[in-house]
Protein backbone atom coordinates (compact mmCIF):
# COMPACT_ATOMS: atom_id res chain seq x y z
CA UNK A 1 0.00 0.00 0.00
CA UNK A 2 2.68 2.44 1.09
CA UNK A 3 4.75 1.56 -1.99
CA UNK A 4 1.84 2.39 -4.26
CA UNK A 5 1.34 5.76 -2.57
CA UNK A 6 5.02 6.63 -2.94
CA UNK A 7 4.84 5.54 -6.55
CA UNK A 8 1.91 7.81 -7.23
CA UNK A 9 3.62 10.72 -5.54
CA UNK A 10 6.72 10.11 -7.64
CA UNK A 11 4.68 10.00 -10.85
CA UNK A 12 3.03 13.29 -9.98
CA UNK A 13 6.33 14.98 -9.22
CA UNK A 14 7.66 13.89 -12.58
CA UNK A 15 4.52 14.30 -14.65
CA UNK A 16 3.30 17.74 -13.60
CA UNK A 17 6.34 19.73 -14.77
CA UNK A 18 6.50 17.57 -17.90
CA UNK A 19 2.90 18.42 -18.78
CA UNK A 20 3.46 22.08 -18.11
CA UNK A 21 6.55 22.07 -20.29
CA UNK A 22 4.66 20.23 -23.04
CA UNK A 23 2.06 22.97 -23.16
CA UNK A 24 4.62 25.70 -23.42
CA UNK A 25 6.70 24.29 -26.28
CA UNK A 26 3.99 22.87 -28.55
CA UNK A 27 1.90 24.77 -31.03
CA UNK A 28 -1.64 23.39 -30.91
CA UNK A 29 -3.62 23.36 -34.15
CA UNK A 30 -7.18 22.12 -34.08
CA UNK A 31 -10.36 22.14 -36.14
CA UNK A 32 -11.77 21.25 -39.53
CA UNK A 33 -11.61 17.55 -40.40
CA UNK A 34 -11.30 18.57 -44.04
CA UNK A 35 -8.04 20.32 -43.26
CA UNK A 36 -6.45 17.78 -40.91
CA UNK A 37 -4.34 16.13 -43.60
CA UNK A 38 -3.20 19.49 -44.93
CA UNK A 39 -2.37 20.78 -41.45
CA UNK A 40 -0.48 17.59 -40.69
CA UNK A 41 1.53 17.84 -43.92
CA UNK A 42 2.45 21.45 -43.16
CA UNK A 43 3.38 20.58 -39.60
CA UNK A 44 5.64 17.72 -40.66
CA UNK A 45 7.53 19.79 -43.21
CA UNK A 46 7.77 22.73 -40.80
CA UNK A 47 9.16 20.55 -38.01
CA UNK A 48 11.68 19.06 -40.43
CA UNK A 49 12.98 22.58 -41.08
CA UNK A 50 12.66 23.76 -37.47
CA UNK A 51 13.52 20.77 -35.29
CA UNK A 52 13.19 22.83 -32.12
CA UNK A 53 9.48 23.50 -32.62
CA UNK A 54 6.73 20.99 -31.99
CA UNK A 55 3.31 21.23 -33.64
CA UNK A 56 0.32 19.09 -32.74
CA UNK A 57 -2.55 18.86 -35.24
CA UNK A 58 -5.97 17.45 -34.34
CA UNK A 59 -9.39 17.41 -36.03
CA UNK A 60 -12.88 17.51 -34.57
CA UNK A 61 -14.64 19.93 -36.89
CA UNK A 62 -14.43 23.65 -37.60
CA UNK A 63 -16.69 24.48 -34.66
CA UNK A 64 -14.60 22.43 -32.27
CA UNK A 65 -11.50 24.32 -33.40
CA UNK A 66 -13.15 27.70 -32.85
CA UNK A 67 -14.41 26.63 -29.43
CA UNK A 68 -10.85 25.63 -28.49
CA UNK A 69 -9.42 28.90 -29.76
CA UNK A 70 -11.93 30.79 -27.64
CA UNK A 71 -11.23 28.69 -24.56
CA UNK A 72 -7.50 29.06 -25.14
CA UNK A 73 -6.66 25.38 -25.61
CA UNK A 74 -5.33 25.79 -29.13
CA UNK A 75 -3.23 28.41 -30.93
CA UNK A 76 -4.58 28.04 -34.45
CA UNK A 77 -8.10 26.92 -35.33
CA UNK A 78 -8.47 25.41 -38.79
CA UNK A 79 -11.81 26.29 -40.29
CA UNK A 80 -13.48 25.38 -43.57
CA UNK A 81 -16.04 28.17 -43.11
CA UNK A 82 -16.04 31.82 -42.02
CA UNK A 83 -16.14 32.58 -38.31
CA UNK A 84 -19.76 32.94 -37.23
CA UNK A 85 -20.86 36.25 -35.70
CA UNK A 86 -21.93 34.32 -32.60
CA UNK A 87 -18.42 32.95 -32.20
CA UNK A 88 -16.87 36.41 -32.59
CA UNK A 89 -19.23 37.79 -29.93
CA UNK A 90 -18.42 34.95 -27.58
CA UNK A 91 -14.68 35.38 -28.14
CA UNK A 92 -14.87 39.15 -27.58
CA UNK A 93 -16.80 38.56 -24.36
CA UNK A 94 -13.87 36.50 -23.11
CA UNK A 95 -11.24 39.01 -24.17
CA UNK A 96 -10.14 37.38 -27.42
CA UNK A 97 -10.04 38.90 -30.87
CA UNK A 98 -10.01 36.17 -33.55
CA UNK A 99 -9.17 36.91 -37.17
CA UNK A 100 -9.28 34.58 -40.17
CA UNK A 101 -6.46 34.11 -42.65
CA UNK A 102 -7.14 32.41 -45.98
CA UNK A 103 -4.56 29.66 -46.49
CA UNK A 104 -5.95 27.46 -49.28
CA UNK A 105 -8.97 26.73 -51.45
CA UNK A 106 -11.08 23.61 -51.64
CA UNK A 107 -13.44 22.49 -54.37
CA UNK A 108 -16.47 20.52 -53.30
CA UNK A 109 -17.18 17.72 -55.72
CA UNK A 110 -20.72 16.46 -56.26
CA UNK A 111 -20.56 12.73 -56.83
CA UNK A 112 -22.85 9.95 -58.03
CA UNK A 113 -22.47 6.23 -58.65
CA UNK A 114 -20.32 5.48 -61.76
CA UNK A 115 -23.29 3.72 -63.42
CA UNK A 116 -25.50 6.81 -63.08
CA UNK A 117 -26.08 8.32 -66.53
CA UNK A 118 -26.36 11.89 -65.24
CA UNK A 119 -23.14 13.72 -66.21
CA UNK A 120 -23.85 17.36 -65.45
CA UNK A 121 -26.14 19.51 -63.33
CA UNK A 122 -26.72 23.22 -62.82
CA UNK A 123 -26.52 24.84 -59.40
CA UNK A 124 -30.31 25.29 -59.47
CA UNK A 125 -30.81 21.60 -60.12
CA UNK A 126 -28.41 20.75 -57.30
CA UNK A 127 -30.31 23.04 -54.94
CA UNK A 128 -33.59 21.39 -55.94
CA UNK A 129 -32.17 17.89 -55.53
CA UNK A 130 -30.62 18.47 -52.11
CA UNK A 131 -33.62 20.32 -50.74
CA UNK A 132 -35.94 17.56 -51.97
CA UNK A 133 -37.87 19.45 -54.68
CA UNK A 134 -36.50 17.11 -57.34
CA UNK A 135 -37.08 13.58 -56.06
CA UNK A 136 -36.39 11.37 -59.07
CA UNK A 137 -33.35 11.00 -61.30
CA UNK A 138 -35.78 11.05 -64.24
CA UNK A 139 -36.36 14.79 -63.73
CA UNK A 140 -32.69 15.55 -64.47
CA UNK A 141 -32.32 13.14 -67.37
CA UNK A 142 -31.42 9.94 -65.54
CA UNK A 143 -33.08 6.62 -64.72
CA UNK A 144 -36.54 6.40 -63.16
CA UNK A 145 -35.31 5.99 -59.58
CA UNK A 146 -35.73 7.85 -56.32
CA UNK A 147 -32.77 10.08 -55.47
CA UNK A 148 -31.04 9.17 -52.22
CA UNK A 149 -29.53 12.35 -50.80
CA UNK A 150 -26.33 12.02 -48.79
CA UNK A 151 -25.13 14.91 -46.66
CA UNK A 152 -22.51 15.44 -43.98
CA UNK A 153 -23.65 15.97 -40.38
CA UNK A 154 -24.29 19.53 -39.19
CA UNK A 155 -20.94 19.61 -37.37
CA UNK A 156 -19.18 19.68 -40.73
CA UNK A 157 -17.97 22.89 -42.35
CA UNK A 158 -18.66 21.24 -45.70
CA UNK A 159 -22.33 20.84 -44.73
CA UNK A 160 -22.60 24.49 -43.77
CA UNK A 161 -20.83 25.65 -46.93
CA UNK A 162 -22.98 23.51 -49.19
CA UNK A 163 -26.15 24.75 -47.54
CA UNK A 164 -25.23 28.42 -47.71
CA UNK A 165 -23.73 28.46 -51.19
CA UNK A 166 -25.67 25.82 -53.10
CA UNK A 167 -29.04 25.47 -51.36
CA UNK A 168 -29.36 29.14 -50.38
CA UNK A 169 -27.25 30.56 -53.23
CA UNK A 170 -25.47 33.01 -50.90
CA UNK A 171 -28.78 34.67 -50.03
CA UNK A 172 -28.84 35.25 -46.26
CA UNK A 173 -32.61 35.66 -46.24
CA UNK A 174 -33.17 32.27 -47.89
CA UNK A 175 -34.80 29.63 -45.74
CA UNK A 176 -33.77 26.64 -47.86
CA UNK A 177 -32.75 23.52 -45.93
CA UNK A 178 -31.52 20.07 -46.77
CA UNK A 179 -34.47 17.73 -47.34
CA UNK A 180 -35.55 16.23 -44.03
CA UNK A 181 -35.10 12.80 -45.60
CA UNK A 182 -31.45 13.41 -46.48
CA UNK A 183 -29.14 10.83 -44.93
CA UNK A 184 -26.66 12.46 -42.55
CA UNK A 185 -23.34 10.65 -42.61
CA UNK A 186 -20.60 11.32 -40.14
CA UNK A 187 -17.61 11.47 -42.48
CA UNK A 188 -16.61 12.14 -46.08
CA UNK A 189 -15.38 8.57 -46.30
CA UNK A 190 -18.83 7.30 -45.32
CA UNK A 191 -20.31 9.35 -48.18
CA UNK A 192 -17.71 7.99 -50.59
CA UNK A 193 -18.54 4.40 -49.54
CA UNK A 194 -22.31 4.84 -49.76
CA UNK A 195 -22.09 6.51 -53.19
CA UNK A 196 -19.81 3.71 -54.43
CA UNK A 197 -22.38 1.11 -53.37
CA UNK A 198 -25.67 2.81 -54.12
CA UNK A 199 -26.59 3.55 -57.77
CA UNK A 200 -29.33 6.05 -56.89
CA UNK A 201 -27.39 8.18 -54.41
CA UNK A 202 -25.87 11.64 -54.71
CA UNK A 203 -23.41 13.16 -52.27
CA UNK A 204 -20.71 15.78 -51.90
CA UNK A 205 -17.21 15.88 -50.45
CA UNK A 206 -13.93 17.78 -50.65
CA UNK A 207 -11.91 17.25 -53.84
CA UNK A 208 -9.27 15.27 -51.97
CA UNK A 209 -11.67 12.32 -51.78
CA UNK A 210 -12.29 11.99 -55.53
CA UNK A 211 -11.70 8.39 -56.65
CA UNK A 212 -12.76 6.19 -59.61
CA UNK A 213 -15.36 4.49 -57.39
CA UNK A 214 -17.50 7.61 -57.60
CA UNK A 215 -18.29 9.76 -60.62
CA UNK A 216 -17.94 13.51 -60.33
CA UNK A 217 -20.68 15.64 -61.83
CA UNK A 218 -19.83 18.69 -63.95
CA UNK A 219 -21.54 21.76 -62.51
CA UNK A 220 -22.71 24.95 -64.20
CA UNK A 221 -23.61 28.27 -62.51
CA UNK A 222 -26.85 28.47 -64.52
CA UNK A 223 -28.48 27.08 -67.63
CA UNK A 224 -26.52 29.31 -70.01
CA UNK A 225 -23.00 28.92 -68.65
CA UNK A 226 -20.54 26.14 -69.24
CA UNK A 227 -20.46 22.89 -67.25
CA UNK A 228 -17.18 22.61 -65.33
CA UNK A 229 -15.48 19.52 -63.86
CA UNK A 230 -14.02 19.83 -60.34
CA UNK A 231 -10.28 19.94 -61.03
CA UNK A 232 -7.49 21.90 -59.36
CA UNK A 233 -7.02 24.05 -62.46
CA UNK A 234 -10.70 24.92 -62.72
CA UNK A 235 -10.90 25.88 -59.04
CA UNK A 236 -7.75 28.04 -59.28
CA UNK A 237 -9.09 29.85 -62.30
CA UNK A 238 -12.36 30.41 -60.46
CA UNK A 239 -14.39 28.49 -63.05
CA UNK A 240 -15.76 25.76 -60.80
CA UNK A 241 -18.75 27.20 -58.95
CA UNK A 242 -18.60 25.24 -55.68
CA UNK A 243 -15.27 26.11 -54.15
CA UNK A 244 -14.53 27.61 -50.79
CA UNK A 245 -11.65 29.19 -48.91
CA UNK A 246 -9.97 27.36 -46.04
CA UNK A 247 -8.92 29.45 -43.06
CA UNK A 248 -6.57 29.59 -40.15
CA UNK A 249 -8.28 31.46 -37.31
CA UNK A 250 -5.89 33.06 -34.85
CA UNK A 251 -5.69 35.81 -32.27
CA UNK A 252 -5.16 39.17 -33.95
CA UNK A 253 -2.03 39.64 -31.81
CA UNK A 254 -0.09 36.53 -32.72
CA UNK A 255 2.83 34.90 -30.97
CA UNK A 256 6.09 34.74 -32.82
CA UNK A 257 5.69 30.95 -33.26
CA UNK A 258 2.18 31.23 -34.70
CA UNK A 259 3.20 33.99 -37.11
CA UNK A 260 6.17 31.97 -38.33
CA UNK A 261 4.01 28.93 -39.03
CA UNK A 262 1.42 30.94 -40.95
CA UNK A 263 4.19 32.55 -43.00
CA UNK A 264 5.44 29.07 -43.84
CA UNK A 265 1.97 27.89 -44.88
CA UNK A 266 1.62 30.87 -47.22
CA UNK A 267 5.13 30.54 -48.67
CA UNK A 268 5.64 28.93 -52.12
CA UNK A 269 6.82 25.79 -50.33
CA UNK A 270 3.73 25.70 -48.14
CA UNK A 271 1.45 26.25 -51.11
CA UNK A 272 3.16 23.39 -52.95
CA UNK A 273 2.12 21.15 -50.06
CA UNK A 274 -1.45 22.39 -50.54
CA UNK A 275 -1.39 21.03 -54.06
CA UNK A 276 0.18 17.73 -52.97
CA UNK A 277 -2.68 17.13 -50.52
CA UNK A 278 -5.28 17.65 -53.29
CA UNK A 279 -6.36 21.12 -52.25
CA UNK A 280 -6.01 24.26 -54.31
CA UNK A 281 -3.27 26.83 -53.62
CA UNK A 282 -4.34 30.47 -53.26
CA UNK A 283 -1.42 31.79 -55.32
Amino acid sequence: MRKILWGMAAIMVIAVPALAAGKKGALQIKGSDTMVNLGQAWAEKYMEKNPADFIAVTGGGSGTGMASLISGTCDIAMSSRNIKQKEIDLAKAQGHDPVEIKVALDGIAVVVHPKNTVEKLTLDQLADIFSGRIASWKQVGGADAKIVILSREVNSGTHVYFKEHVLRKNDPSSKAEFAAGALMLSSSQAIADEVAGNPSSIGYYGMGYISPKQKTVAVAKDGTSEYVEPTIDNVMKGLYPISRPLFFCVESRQDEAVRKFIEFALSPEGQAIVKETDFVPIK
Partner: protein
Amino acid sequence: MLRKIKEFIIEKLILLCGLASVIFVALIFIFLLKEGLSVFKFVRPGEFLAGRSWYPISEPAQLGILPLILGSLWVTFGAAVISVPIGVGCAVYIAEIAPGRTKEVLKGGIELLAAIPSVVLGFIGMVTLVPLVKNVFHLSTGLTGLSGSIILAFMAMPTIVSIAEDALYAVPKSYKEGAFALGATHWQTIWRVLLPAASSGIVAAVMLGIGRVIGETMAVMMITGNSAVIPRGLLEPLRTLTATIAAEMGEAVVGSEHYFALFAIGIILFIISFAVNVTADLFLHKNK
Protein backbone atom coordinates in the same frame (compact mmCIF):
# COMPACT_ATOMS: atom_id res chain seq x y z
CA MET B 1 -5.37 1.95 18.97
CA LEU B 2 -3.64 2.12 15.61
CA ARG B 3 -5.73 -0.78 14.42
CA LYS B 4 -8.90 1.02 15.40
CA ILE B 5 -7.90 4.13 13.48
CA LYS B 6 -7.06 2.00 10.49
CA GLU B 7 -10.44 0.28 10.68
CA PHE B 8 -12.16 3.64 10.96
CA ILE B 9 -10.38 5.11 7.96
CA ILE B 10 -11.00 2.07 5.80
CA GLU B 11 -14.66 1.98 6.78
CA LYS B 12 -15.13 5.62 5.85
CA LEU B 13 -13.26 5.14 2.58
CA ILE B 14 -15.56 2.30 1.64
CA LEU B 15 -18.58 4.36 2.63
CA LEU B 16 -17.31 7.10 0.33
CA CYS B 17 -16.96 4.61 -2.52
CA GLY B 18 -20.50 3.43 -1.87
CA LEU B 19 -21.86 6.96 -1.93
CA ALA B 20 -19.79 7.98 -4.94
CA SER B 21 -22.08 6.50 -7.56
CA VAL B 22 -25.17 8.12 -6.03
CA ILE B 23 -23.39 11.46 -5.80
CA PHE B 24 -22.26 11.20 -9.41
CA VAL B 25 -25.77 10.46 -10.63
CA ALA B 26 -27.11 13.42 -8.68
CA LEU B 27 -24.38 15.73 -9.99
CA ILE B 28 -24.90 14.59 -13.57
CA PHE B 29 -28.63 15.16 -13.31
CA ILE B 30 -28.18 18.63 -11.78
CA PHE B 31 -25.73 19.57 -14.52
CA LEU B 32 -28.05 18.24 -17.24
CA LEU B 33 -30.98 20.15 -15.77
CA LYS B 34 -29.02 23.36 -15.44
CA GLU B 35 -27.79 23.30 -19.04
CA GLY B 36 -30.81 21.65 -20.62
CA LEU B 37 -33.60 23.74 -19.15
CA SER B 38 -32.04 26.88 -20.63
CA VAL B 39 -33.32 25.77 -24.03
CA PHE B 40 -36.80 26.81 -22.95
CA LYS B 41 -35.67 30.42 -23.10
CA PHE B 42 -35.62 29.90 -26.88
CA VAL B 43 -38.48 27.48 -27.54
CA ARG B 44 -41.64 26.52 -25.68
CA PRO B 45 -41.60 23.01 -24.19
CA GLY B 46 -44.50 21.98 -26.44
CA GLU B 47 -42.67 23.18 -29.55
CA PHE B 48 -39.53 21.39 -28.45
CA LEU B 49 -41.18 18.03 -27.75
CA ALA B 50 -43.76 18.03 -30.54
CA GLY B 51 -41.97 20.08 -33.21
CA ARG B 52 -41.52 18.21 -36.45
CA SER B 53 -38.37 19.80 -37.84
CA TRP B 54 -34.86 19.57 -36.50
CA TYR B 55 -32.64 22.20 -38.16
CA PRO B 56 -30.47 23.21 -35.22
CA ILE B 57 -27.95 25.42 -36.98
CA SER B 58 -30.33 27.50 -39.09
CA GLU B 59 -31.23 31.08 -38.25
CA PRO B 60 -33.59 30.93 -36.46
CA ALA B 61 -32.95 27.37 -35.33
CA GLN B 62 -35.82 24.91 -35.55
CA LEU B 63 -35.62 22.67 -32.53
CA GLY B 64 -38.37 20.07 -32.77
CA ILE B 65 -37.30 16.70 -31.44
CA LEU B 66 -40.41 14.65 -32.22
CA PRO B 67 -38.68 12.90 -35.17
CA LEU B 68 -35.76 12.03 -32.91
CA ILE B 69 -37.94 10.68 -30.09
CA LEU B 70 -39.95 8.60 -32.55
CA GLY B 71 -36.72 7.46 -34.21
CA SER B 72 -35.39 6.20 -30.89
CA LEU B 73 -38.69 4.52 -30.04
CA TRP B 74 -38.99 2.79 -33.42
CA VAL B 75 -35.46 1.41 -33.30
CA THR B 76 -35.96 0.25 -29.73
CA PHE B 77 -39.29 -1.34 -30.56
CA GLY B 78 -37.75 -3.17 -33.52
CA ALA B 79 -34.82 -4.37 -31.44
CA ALA B 80 -37.19 -5.59 -28.70
CA VAL B 81 -39.36 -7.51 -31.19
CA ILE B 82 -36.26 -9.30 -32.45
CA SER B 83 -34.31 -9.80 -29.24
CA VAL B 84 -37.03 -10.70 -26.72
CA PRO B 85 -38.28 -13.96 -28.28
CA ILE B 86 -34.78 -15.08 -29.23
CA GLY B 87 -33.29 -14.02 -25.89
CA VAL B 88 -35.98 -15.63 -23.74
CA GLY B 89 -35.91 -18.75 -25.91
CA CYS B 90 -32.16 -18.91 -25.51
CA ALA B 91 -32.45 -18.51 -21.74
CA VAL B 92 -35.04 -21.32 -21.55
CA TYR B 93 -32.81 -23.57 -23.62
CA ILE B 94 -29.75 -22.88 -21.49
CA ALA B 95 -31.56 -23.16 -18.17
CA GLU B 96 -33.81 -26.13 -18.89
CA ILE B 97 -32.86 -28.15 -21.91
CA ALA B 98 -29.20 -27.89 -22.85
CA PRO B 99 -26.95 -30.70 -21.59
CA GLY B 100 -23.88 -29.76 -19.52
CA ARG B 101 -21.29 -29.07 -22.23
CA THR B 102 -23.62 -27.32 -24.65
CA LYS B 103 -24.72 -25.09 -21.80
CA GLU B 104 -21.15 -24.00 -21.08
CA VAL B 105 -20.41 -23.31 -24.75
CA LEU B 106 -23.62 -21.30 -25.16
CA LYS B 107 -23.01 -19.26 -22.04
CA GLY B 108 -19.48 -18.52 -23.17
CA GLY B 109 -20.77 -17.47 -26.56
CA ILE B 110 -23.31 -15.08 -25.07
CA GLU B 111 -20.67 -13.52 -22.86
CA LEU B 112 -18.44 -13.04 -25.91
CA LEU B 113 -21.30 -11.30 -27.66
CA ALA B 114 -21.50 -8.86 -24.76
CA ALA B 115 -17.78 -8.19 -25.07
CA ILE B 116 -17.87 -6.96 -28.68
CA PRO B 117 -17.50 -3.16 -28.70
CA SER B 118 -20.50 -1.41 -30.21
CA VAL B 119 -18.43 0.41 -32.82
CA VAL B 120 -17.27 -2.95 -34.13
CA LEU B 121 -20.85 -4.20 -34.36
CA GLY B 122 -21.76 -0.96 -36.14
CA PHE B 123 -18.92 -1.40 -38.56
CA ILE B 124 -19.86 -5.00 -39.32
CA GLY B 125 -23.47 -3.88 -39.75
CA MET B 126 -22.42 -1.15 -42.16
CA VAL B 127 -20.45 -3.52 -44.35
CA THR B 128 -22.66 -6.62 -44.28
CA LEU B 129 -26.14 -5.86 -42.96
CA VAL B 130 -26.82 -2.56 -44.74
CA PRO B 131 -26.34 -3.93 -48.29
CA LEU B 132 -28.31 -7.05 -47.30
CA VAL B 133 -31.29 -5.04 -46.02
CA LYS B 134 -31.19 -2.90 -49.17
CA ASN B 135 -31.28 -5.91 -51.48
CA VAL B 136 -33.76 -8.06 -49.56
CA PHE B 137 -36.39 -5.31 -49.26
CA HIS B 138 -35.55 -3.57 -52.57
CA LEU B 139 -34.99 -0.24 -50.85
CA SER B 140 -33.20 2.82 -52.20
CA THR B 141 -30.81 2.63 -49.24
CA GLY B 142 -30.00 0.05 -46.57
CA LEU B 143 -29.27 2.70 -43.94
CA THR B 144 -32.59 2.16 -42.19
CA GLY B 145 -34.16 1.70 -38.79
CA LEU B 146 -34.35 -2.04 -39.41
CA SER B 147 -30.56 -2.34 -39.79
CA GLY B 148 -30.19 -0.47 -36.51
CA SER B 149 -32.78 -2.67 -34.79
CA ILE B 150 -31.04 -5.88 -35.85
CA ILE B 151 -27.64 -4.74 -34.59
CA LEU B 152 -29.16 -3.42 -31.36
CA ALA B 153 -30.96 -6.73 -30.87
CA PHE B 154 -27.52 -8.36 -30.79
CA MET B 155 -26.46 -5.93 -28.09
CA ALA B 156 -29.56 -6.49 -25.97
CA MET B 157 -29.38 -10.29 -26.18
CA PRO B 158 -26.62 -10.92 -23.61
CA THR B 159 -28.43 -8.83 -20.97
CA ILE B 160 -31.77 -10.48 -21.63
CA VAL B 161 -30.37 -14.01 -21.72
CA SER B 162 -28.28 -13.84 -18.58
CA ILE B 163 -30.93 -12.17 -16.39
CA ALA B 164 -33.81 -14.30 -17.73
CA GLU B 165 -31.69 -17.39 -17.14
CA ASP B 166 -31.10 -16.37 -13.51
CA ALA B 167 -34.84 -15.85 -13.11
CA LEU B 168 -35.53 -19.35 -14.42
CA TYR B 169 -32.97 -20.88 -12.05
CA ALA B 170 -34.59 -19.06 -9.16
CA VAL B 171 -37.90 -20.91 -9.63
CA PRO B 172 -38.09 -23.46 -6.77
CA LYS B 173 -37.41 -27.02 -7.86
CA SER B 174 -40.63 -28.20 -6.23
CA TYR B 175 -42.69 -26.38 -8.88
CA LYS B 176 -41.09 -28.40 -11.60
CA GLU B 177 -41.32 -31.66 -9.68
CA GLY B 178 -44.97 -30.98 -8.96
CA ALA B 179 -45.71 -30.39 -12.62
CA PHE B 180 -43.94 -33.58 -13.64
CA ALA B 181 -45.79 -35.52 -10.92
CA LEU B 182 -49.08 -34.35 -12.42
CA GLY B 183 -48.03 -35.87 -15.71
CA ALA B 184 -47.08 -32.67 -17.56
CA THR B 185 -44.60 -32.97 -20.43
CA HIS B 186 -41.32 -31.03 -20.34
CA TRP B 187 -42.66 -28.35 -22.70
CA GLN B 188 -45.93 -28.03 -20.74
CA THR B 189 -43.89 -27.56 -17.58
CA ILE B 190 -41.76 -24.85 -19.16
CA TRP B 191 -44.66 -23.01 -20.78
CA ARG B 192 -47.32 -23.32 -18.05
CA VAL B 193 -45.23 -23.43 -14.87
CA LEU B 194 -41.66 -22.17 -15.19
CA LEU B 195 -42.21 -19.16 -17.43
CA PRO B 196 -45.16 -17.80 -15.42
CA ALA B 197 -43.27 -18.37 -12.17
CA ALA B 198 -40.21 -16.53 -13.52
CA SER B 199 -42.23 -13.88 -15.35
CA SER B 200 -41.28 -10.92 -13.18
CA GLY B 201 -37.58 -11.70 -13.58
CA ILE B 202 -38.02 -12.11 -17.31
CA VAL B 203 -39.82 -8.77 -17.58
CA ALA B 204 -36.94 -7.20 -15.68
CA ALA B 205 -34.50 -8.82 -18.12
CA VAL B 206 -36.41 -7.40 -21.06
CA MET B 207 -36.55 -3.93 -19.51
CA LEU B 208 -32.81 -3.90 -18.82
CA GLY B 209 -32.19 -5.06 -22.39
CA ILE B 210 -34.34 -2.21 -23.65
CA GLY B 211 -32.47 0.22 -21.42
CA ARG B 212 -29.26 -0.90 -23.08
CA VAL B 213 -30.77 -0.36 -26.53
CA ILE B 214 -32.13 3.14 -25.90
CA GLY B 215 -28.79 4.42 -24.70
CA GLU B 216 -26.74 2.88 -27.51
CA THR B 217 -25.13 5.46 -29.76
CA MET B 218 -22.26 4.49 -31.97
CA ALA B 219 -23.76 1.56 -33.84
CA VAL B 220 -27.07 3.32 -34.56
CA MET B 221 -25.28 6.44 -35.71
CA MET B 222 -23.32 4.38 -38.23
CA ILE B 223 -26.21 2.45 -39.78
CA THR B 224 -29.56 4.21 -39.38
CA GLY B 225 -28.94 6.98 -41.92
CA ASN B 226 -29.66 9.76 -39.39
CA SER B 227 -32.30 11.65 -41.31
CA ALA B 228 -34.51 13.66 -39.00
CA VAL B 229 -37.87 12.75 -40.52
CA ILE B 230 -40.85 11.34 -38.69
CA PRO B 231 -40.42 7.62 -39.38
CA ARG B 232 -43.42 5.74 -40.68
CA GLY B 233 -41.81 2.36 -40.27
CA LEU B 234 -38.55 0.53 -39.82
CA LEU B 235 -37.68 0.39 -43.52
CA GLU B 236 -36.80 4.09 -43.59
CA PRO B 237 -33.79 6.03 -42.44
CA LEU B 238 -34.30 7.59 -39.02
CA ARG B 239 -32.36 9.58 -36.45
CA THR B 240 -32.14 8.69 -32.77
CA LEU B 241 -31.75 10.96 -29.73
CA THR B 242 -28.35 9.51 -28.88
CA ALA B 243 -26.93 9.84 -32.38
CA THR B 244 -28.04 13.46 -32.50
CA ILE B 245 -26.10 14.34 -29.37
CA ALA B 246 -23.02 12.44 -30.50
CA ALA B 247 -23.01 13.88 -34.00
CA GLU B 248 -23.69 17.50 -33.11
CA MET B 249 -22.09 18.20 -29.74
CA GLY B 250 -18.68 18.78 -31.27
CA GLU B 251 -19.91 21.67 -33.37
CA ALA B 252 -22.50 23.31 -31.12
CA VAL B 253 -21.38 26.80 -30.14
CA VAL B 254 -21.17 26.77 -26.33
CA GLY B 255 -24.08 28.79 -24.93
CA SER B 256 -26.17 28.70 -28.10
CA GLU B 257 -29.72 27.35 -28.26
CA HIS B 258 -28.36 24.34 -30.16
CA TYR B 259 -26.02 23.54 -27.26
CA PHE B 260 -28.81 23.79 -24.71
CA ALA B 261 -31.13 21.75 -26.92
CA LEU B 262 -28.61 18.90 -26.99
CA PHE B 263 -28.50 18.93 -23.18
CA ALA B 264 -32.29 18.93 -23.11
CA ILE B 265 -32.22 15.84 -25.33
CA GLY B 266 -29.88 14.40 -22.71
CA ILE B 267 -32.53 15.04 -20.04
CA ILE B 268 -35.15 13.25 -22.13
CA LEU B 269 -32.83 10.27 -22.57
CA PHE B 270 -32.01 10.27 -18.88
CA ILE B 271 -35.72 10.25 -17.98
CA ILE B 272 -36.50 7.45 -20.42
CA SER B 273 -33.70 5.16 -19.27
CA PHE B 274 -34.37 6.01 -15.61
CA ALA B 275 -38.02 5.01 -16.07
CA VAL B 276 -37.01 1.79 -17.82
CA ASN B 277 -34.52 0.88 -15.10
CA VAL B 278 -36.95 1.66 -12.28
CA THR B 279 -39.56 -0.55 -13.95
CA ALA B 280 -37.00 -3.33 -14.22
CA ASP B 281 -36.10 -2.89 -10.57
CA LEU B 282 -39.73 -3.04 -9.46
CA PHE B 283 -40.19 -6.33 -11.28
CA LEU B 284 -36.92 -7.74 -9.93
CA HIS B 285 -37.93 -7.02 -6.35
CA LYS B 286 -41.43 -8.33 -6.85
CA ASN B 287 -39.70 -11.60 -7.59
CA LYS B 288 -38.11 -11.79 -4.14
